[in-house]
């Protein structure tokens, strides 16, 4: 256990460094973004003096290093900064803009993950167990086509069938505060379905491949020869040894659910963090863009970290030293 603790600590420190590096990259990249907020808000007719005054008010006239340090310092105190937009009348903290949207995105991701992961694992196991059977080929063909079709098309097809032809669900998933869980679940049904189609394919195929790889090991033959029942062979003997790659692809899919769903959010008019970021980029609202990017980076790194730790923790060779 000692060795495991050390490994986890090591990975955590590495993760923190990665996040720091990402913050530098994000900050510098935005520095190079053409145009600035002051000029774009004040319009073409603004005098250079007005622009300069506005830049000073926003702190844009300070040297980049100083601004970076101020930003990071604020982050360490849990302060994401203040949005540029609407500053003159009501200063809006970035947290107020981003966090509710992040909450919505995480809700959508959680519901999708809760539905898609068990289905993917189950289909993957079945496909591995009945390898090259008709069932296996059917599942493979179906999942391959859902990967191949662009997700917005899947989304519109689903809307066409389940909201237009048979109006069972709403085509728009605009959540608002104060809704009950049941209402929310009903509203997100279609985006959840769409996203599930996309991620089930990846997870199912990786599960199938990992299990098939393990099934050719001598210890699986041994399990069969000692009369272990087929399902036990899969669950008790194959699955624990295939967990590493499977957990990795699950983490990857979950990260996608947080980071990569902007298209789906647009199609279903879902108030998630992806849309927020796209709007902020359009408005040159740099603090919001920075906050969103950093949230994405943290999500990615954390999920991969968790996957690594799970992979290590399920490997007895690493868990129990000689």
């Amino acid at each position, binding site marked *: 256990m000692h060795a495991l603790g050390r490994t986890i600590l090591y990975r955590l420190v590495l993760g923190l460094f990665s996040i720091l590096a990402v913050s530098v990259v994000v900050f510098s990249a935005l520095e190079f973004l053409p145009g600035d907020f002051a000029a774009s808000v004040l319009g073409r007719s603004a005098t250079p003096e007005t622009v300069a005054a506005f830049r000073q008010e926003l702190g844009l006239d300070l040297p980049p290093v100083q601004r970076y340090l101020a930003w990071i310092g604020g982050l360490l105190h849990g302060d994401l900064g203040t949005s540029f937009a609407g500053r003159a009348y009501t200063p809006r903290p970035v947290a107020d803009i981003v966090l509710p949207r992040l909450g919505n995105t995480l809700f959508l991701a959680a519901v999708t993950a809760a539905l898609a992961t068990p289905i993917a694992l189950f289909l993957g196991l079945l496909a591995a167990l009945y390898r090259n059977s008709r069932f296996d080929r059917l599942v493979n063909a179906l999942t391959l086509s859902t990967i191949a079709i662009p997700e917005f098309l899947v989304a519109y097809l689903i809307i066409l069938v389940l909201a237009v032809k048979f109006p069972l669900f709403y085509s728009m998933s605009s959540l608002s505060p104060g809704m009950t869980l049941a209402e929310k679940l009903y509203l997100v049904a279609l985006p959840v379905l769409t996203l599930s189609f996309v991620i089930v394919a990846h997870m199912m195929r990786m599960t199938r491949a990992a299990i098939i790889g393990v099934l050719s090991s001598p210890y699986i033959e041994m399990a069969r020869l*000692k009369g272990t029942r087929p399902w036990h062979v899969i669950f008790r003997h194959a699955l624990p040894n295939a967990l590493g790659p499977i957990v990795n692809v699950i983490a990857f899919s979950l990260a996608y659910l947080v980071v990569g769903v902007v298209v789906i959010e647009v199609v279903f008019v879902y108030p998630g963090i992806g849309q927020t970021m796209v709007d902020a980029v359009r408005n040159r609202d740099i603090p919001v863009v920075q906050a969103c990017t950093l949230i994405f980076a943290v999500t990615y790194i954390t999920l991969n970290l968790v996957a690594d730790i799970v992979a290590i923790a399920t490997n007895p060779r690493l868990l129990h030293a000689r």
Partner: protein
Amino acid sequence: MSGDETLLDIRDMRIEGESDGQWNVLVDGVDLTLKRGEVLGLVGESGAGKSTLGLAALGYVRPGCRIASGDIIFDGQDLLRLSDAERCGLRGHRISYVAQSAAASFNPAHALLRQTIETAVQRRLMNAGAARKKAVEQFRELSLPDPETIGRRYPHQVSGGQLQRVMTAMAMHCGPDLIVFDEPTTALDVTTQIDVLASIREAVEAQGIAAIYITHDLAVVAQMAHRIMVLRHGKVVEEASTQRMLDAPQNEYTRSLWAVRELAKPEETTPSSPLLTIEGLDFSYGKGFVKALDNVALTVPRGRTLAVVGESGSGKSTLGRIVAGLNVPTSGRLTFDGAALPPRLEHRNKDLLRRIQLVHQSADTALNPRHTVREIIARPLEVFFDLRGEACDRRTDELLDMIELGPRFATRLPSELSGGQKQRVNIARGIAAGPELMICDEVTSALDQLVQEGILKMLLGLQASLGVSYFFITHDISTVRAIADEVVVMHRGKVVEVGSQREIFAPPHEAYTELLLGSAPQMRADWLTEFLAERGPVARQHAQSTERNGGSTHV
């Protein structure tokens, strides 16, 4: 043996395996009967169909194989007519299996005890508490260390010999009528093998379990079996009681198997000068680690063979790699042909590299699978002798004749060669450089005995005609007898004994040499019994401590 009741009756068994879309016969019309409590030895070379037939006794065929015809009657039931679930119910309960590589056959994700009692608990033959208690009892009977707690360990935490005994305990846990042992000791060191053999035999005898014991090692099967069946190309060559089979083998092929063990190199009478001298050699992997080699000193005489003998973990391969320049010693001096031998590969000039060649144990991994035999052998000719075109081809053909394959093999790929042929090509590549010293690292260990004999004879012939010296690393005593002039016995990184072959094999021995020599099974049916009777509890403890400290698995 208890009673004359037939337990297993395999009739006219024909099993086929698919390769490249064709069905080849693996087992060809074999009849096999086994009485209750009887142990049948199944002997043959690799590819003879032993394992396939052994697995058929459990009603199991590997993926890609099929039973074409025949019946398998176990205790009155035809296994092939049962449903999958019924067959599954017999396995592990009434018929069980012990695999060759226990390290690969235990699930790395679960502790040993859990795997041992799995079948009993799943079938509700015992409750978990009783099953655990029984397993611990069996661990004790099989003389495993710490029987109470060893079950909590994971497979990678236990040595090869111990794992093999845990697997035997697992096979016997539900009180089966029949166990199929598939080469259970092939991967073990001789001193480890002996304890596993003894444990298996005691346990099987005590409970009157019938067994099929599969091996390619005749001396081993002679200790274990009441009756021996010799297989070749999927057919029965000969079948008789063990004593009869040892005393008077009827078939030509069987007799040739017996003859292999008698190969012995005659003593050289002419004196020889030293070619390679090693003095005060130390080596450890990184700083602060245990020494893998400790104050090693030895001499390889010119034109002779020095055999370096030891079990896994003795440091013999590391020593070979140091001579080849692949590992750099911590301290010590190497002298080659009168001059200091630079320890680092990059400090050796091209001619020095040519004069010392290394031949690896596994030709499968040492030969590039995409190169033809000609390309493989021509490479050193190009590098060291700058031979090109026709001259190079001519020399390659000569070398192919020297390794008794001939020019027609030149265009083949390694995948189109048998194991023995691959090893010959591997050796030819070393010989092509025209070396004075050839390091042979377990070059015959993975081969069948008849093939081994051919390669050893070829190596002796090459030595006689080319005057090359061999630094011959092996763990096998009969190989030493066949090829060595001088012998170095190594144990845990130290040289235990040095001398000519005659000196080493003649008493008095160092204690470890004694153990090593004594542990090599002999072709007498009662050898193991005598050995165990003679060996005091002290020797047994010694063997176990060796096993616990070393990895003790040959791969």
